[in-house]
């Protein structure tokens, strides 16, 4: 899945489906941010009846007194509320505010004092009696936005003038008092509940949701490093969450109050910069230099602001921030809004339109907050809308991305299923191809085997039958004919035996040959000495090789029968070596006859034996035994015939 929509990547290919936003969208883009502001104004409207109990001014005395008793000789001045002074030259500032509450008679119902944003440590006194103690608070705050409602016991109030004193203790850089309400508890409590929901509970809830989203996007980014937009978005949410933390977090845990304030304000700037970078990634742009400049500028400002907060007193950068810093942020973020708008004009995908709407809402709210602050640079009672807008938009957009992510996952699943189906189809095709190839190979192998059998028949029985026919024309050749026909039958049996030698078992093949000739040797009075032993298997020793070897051995047998005049024949197998030292199996046929006659020319039989041995890559040795008999030794290499053999044959062995 890509959060960044397809339009930016269609440049490289694909179907460019461009669509400009409709006028209705622009109308929506114009109306929605304004509707948002109106909605916020409605939500933040003062609760009914509250204004009647508010005090626009108070008597103010910057005196570090602990109790009202010490205020007898103090000179009071009148100040407008909300009131704010820089704290200069001391670590704790204590100021007193005085309200005169004129009552025609002692009220029957419960009264209370209400502060929407206390932000300092307040102790309250009614007619000299203390309601709350400064010691109840752990430390003077400047960031406690939680509204505070303090009930006044009825007994303390009286008809006529009532003195309400508020002692405010504050750390640098500033001391404040927000708009103060003194009136019936019921009215003030309604306002308190509403403001508590708006200022604290709502922000806490969105904070929890945003932290969850930030974690989710972080996980998505870890899983998909390619989509940096997820990381950027997650960081943006995280930075904004920190900003909200500063707004509602009552407890400072590092630095001085001034530094803490700088950090809180910097989070807003960091949020703007992160948003800009998110937009870059969303649009598929990576202006590295501009981004580095932005980050470097923000860091430089942070350091400068921290230094100022550390070494200068009061809030020296307050006006600078409002009149220079915030406008810079507004311009930069405005540029991002403009980029989004142009992208939406170029191709109005749903993502671009939504992103533009969100950015517009946030930006317009930012401008509104800025203008409200500029119009009233004091620490006024106005609520900044940005926290609500941004949280809302971030959550909305986060949900959208999650939905898209889920949809993309579903699409991926569908795609996977299609892919699986296609793979299966391909596999089936391949299998069919292989089956065809196997059939083809088998047919080839069978054809090769058939042609071998034809060759063997031609080599053996064919020639013998031709000779037999020739003999048959001579009337006196019955005995010779009988011999020749038996030879032909023997050869046929040998062929069949060789075909059955499926495991190429050398000893069994030799045994079959022995069985075939046993009668003739017995008739000639020659005794068989069978001295075979198990031999290692010979590579590639198939029917063709068996038949070649059998013919060699048979020729040797025939020679013994015909010429040797022997009493015994010994057949022996053993492991041996070729002349070059390769391991081999030796088959020896030895008789105790007259041996080879030196004068007798090598017959056709011997030539055939040599030819067949060569075809087996075997060594053939024909010699004389110490006793004078003949010894034929065939040595078959264990590695088989390494010379290229009929490839069809090798295949047959596999099939």
């Amino acid at each position, binding site marked *: 899945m890509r959060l960044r929509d397809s339009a930016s990547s269609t440049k490289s290919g694909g179907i460019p489906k461009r669509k400009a936003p409709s006028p209705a969208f622009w109308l929506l883009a114009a109306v929605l941010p304004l509707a948002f502001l109106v909605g916020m104004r409605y939500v933040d409207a003062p609760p009914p009846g509250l204004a009647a109990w508010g005090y626009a001014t108070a008597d103010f005395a910057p005196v570090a007194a602990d109790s009202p008793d010490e205020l007898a000789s103090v000179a009071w001045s009148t100040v407008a509320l909300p009131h704010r002074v820089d704290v200069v030259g001391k670590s704790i500032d204590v100021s007193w505010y005085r309200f005169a509450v004129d009552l025609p008679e002692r009220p029957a119902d419960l009264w209370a004092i209400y502060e929407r944003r206390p932000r300092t440590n307040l102790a309250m006194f009614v007619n000299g009696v203390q309601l709350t103690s400064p010691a109840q608070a752990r430390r003077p705050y400047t960031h406690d936005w939680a509204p505070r409602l303090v009930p006044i016991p009825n007994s303390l109030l009286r008809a006529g003038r009532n003195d309400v004193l508020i002692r405010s203790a504050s750390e640098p850089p500033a001391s404040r008092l927000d708009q103060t309400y003194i009136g019936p508890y019921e009215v003030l409590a309604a306002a308190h509940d509403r403001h508590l929901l708006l200022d604290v509970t709502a922000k806490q809830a969105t904070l929890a949701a945003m932290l969850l989203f930030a974690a989710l996007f972080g996980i998505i980014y870890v899983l998909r490093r390619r989509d940096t937009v997820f990381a950027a978005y997650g960081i943006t949410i995280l930075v904004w969450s920190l900003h909200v933390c500063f707004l509602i977090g009552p407890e400072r845990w590092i630095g001085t109050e001034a530094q803490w304030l700088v950090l809180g304000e910097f989070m807003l700037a960091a949020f703007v910069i992160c948003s800009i970078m998110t937009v870059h990634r969303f649009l598929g742009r990576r202006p590295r230099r501009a981004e580095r400049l932005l980050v470097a500028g923000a860091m430089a400002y942070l350091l400068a602001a921290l230094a100022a907060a550390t070494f200068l007193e009061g809030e020296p950068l307050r006006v600078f921030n409002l009149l220079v810093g915030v406008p810079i942020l507004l311009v930069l973020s405005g540029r991002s809004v403009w980029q989004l708008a142009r992208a939406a004009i170029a191709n109005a995908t749903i993502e671009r339109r939504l992103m533009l709407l969100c950015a517009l809402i946030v930006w317009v709210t930012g401008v509104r907050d800025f203008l409200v602050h500029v119009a009233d640079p004091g620490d006024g009672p106005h609520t900044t809308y940005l926290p609500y807008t941004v949280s809302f938009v971030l959550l909305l957009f986060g949900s959208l991305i999650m939905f898209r992510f889920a949809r993309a996952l579903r699409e991926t699943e569908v795609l996977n299923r299609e892919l699986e189906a296609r793979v299966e189809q391909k596999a089936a095709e391949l299998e069919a191809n292989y089956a065809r190839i196997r059939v083809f190979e088998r047919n080839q192998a069978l054809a090769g085997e058939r042609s071998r059998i034809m060759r063997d028949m031609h080599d053996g029985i064919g020639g013998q039958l031709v000779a037999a026919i020739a003999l048959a024309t001579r009337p006196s050749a019955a005995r010779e004919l009988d011999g020749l026909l038996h030879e032909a*039958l023997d050869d046929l*049996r040998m062929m*069949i035996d060789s075909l059955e030698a499926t*495991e190429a078992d050398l*000893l*069994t093949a030799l*045994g*079959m040959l022995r069985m075939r000739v046993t009668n003739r040797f017995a008739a000639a009075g020659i005794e068989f000495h069978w001295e*075979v032993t198990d031999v290692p298997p010979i590579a590639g020793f198939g029917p063709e090789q068996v038949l070649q070897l059998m013919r060699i051995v048979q020729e040797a047998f025939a020679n013994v029968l015909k010429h040797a005049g022997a009493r015994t024949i010994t057949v022996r197998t053993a492991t041996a070596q070729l002349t070059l030292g390769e391991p081999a199996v030796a088959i020896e046929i030895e008789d105790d006859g007259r041996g080879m006659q030196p004068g007798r020319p090598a017959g056709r039989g011997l030539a055939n034996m040599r030819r067949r041995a060569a075809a087996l890559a075997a060594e053939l040795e024909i010699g004389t035994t110490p006793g004078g008999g003949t010894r034929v030794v065939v040595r078959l290499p264990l590695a088989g015939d390494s010379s290229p053999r009929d490839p069809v044959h090798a295949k047959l062995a596999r099939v």
Partner: protein
Amino acid sequence: MPYELMTIVYLLEDDAVTRHNLEERLVAVEGIKVPVSVGTCTEMLTAVRAGRPDVLLCDLQLPDGNGVEVIRVARDLHPDIEVMVISVFGDEQRVVTALKAGATGYLLKDDPSSEIGAAISQLLQGGSPISPAIARYLIRVFRPTEMPEQTPPPQVDSAVGLTTRELEVLQLAAKGFSYGEIARMLGISGATVSSYTKKIYGKLAVHSRSEAVYEASRLGLIDEVRRDT
């Protein structure tokens, strides 16, 4: 020799020339009589139902059927007769087919009279011939783990397994040793060796029959087979 003491041989061979030639060679052996010499399965089936031979000599490929069927019927009717298959080549495939049907020996069509006489008397004395290829085949059949596709069914009677001695005989025969040589090597008599062979052939017939039953039961044909047997 009185007729009752003579060996009665029934001969089934479709080629007339070969049949007559065989008949002549059989009769040439002393003590052998061939009262039935026919060329079709039908004729031979009629003959074995009517009378009992000592030895049935039987070709496999016949014009009106397979000799294997004749062998089966003859063995069912007369369990103690000897059956020999006659073949041109004495090749493993044909001989094994006949052995599975219950044959206990084989003859080559060109064997001289002396061979035929020796073979028949060997059979009657309780022995059977064997070739190295058949020995090798039997080793494979009775050692099923090495040939997965020939794994015998689990219900095969353990009595059809080979004894150690029988396996030794087969192993030596497969290497081409003669009965005489095997007898010397194992320290037993030649007749004993050939009687081992005959027992092994009997086991092969039982084995292939139970294998057939197993196959049939696997295919759902078991009832028919039971009715047959």
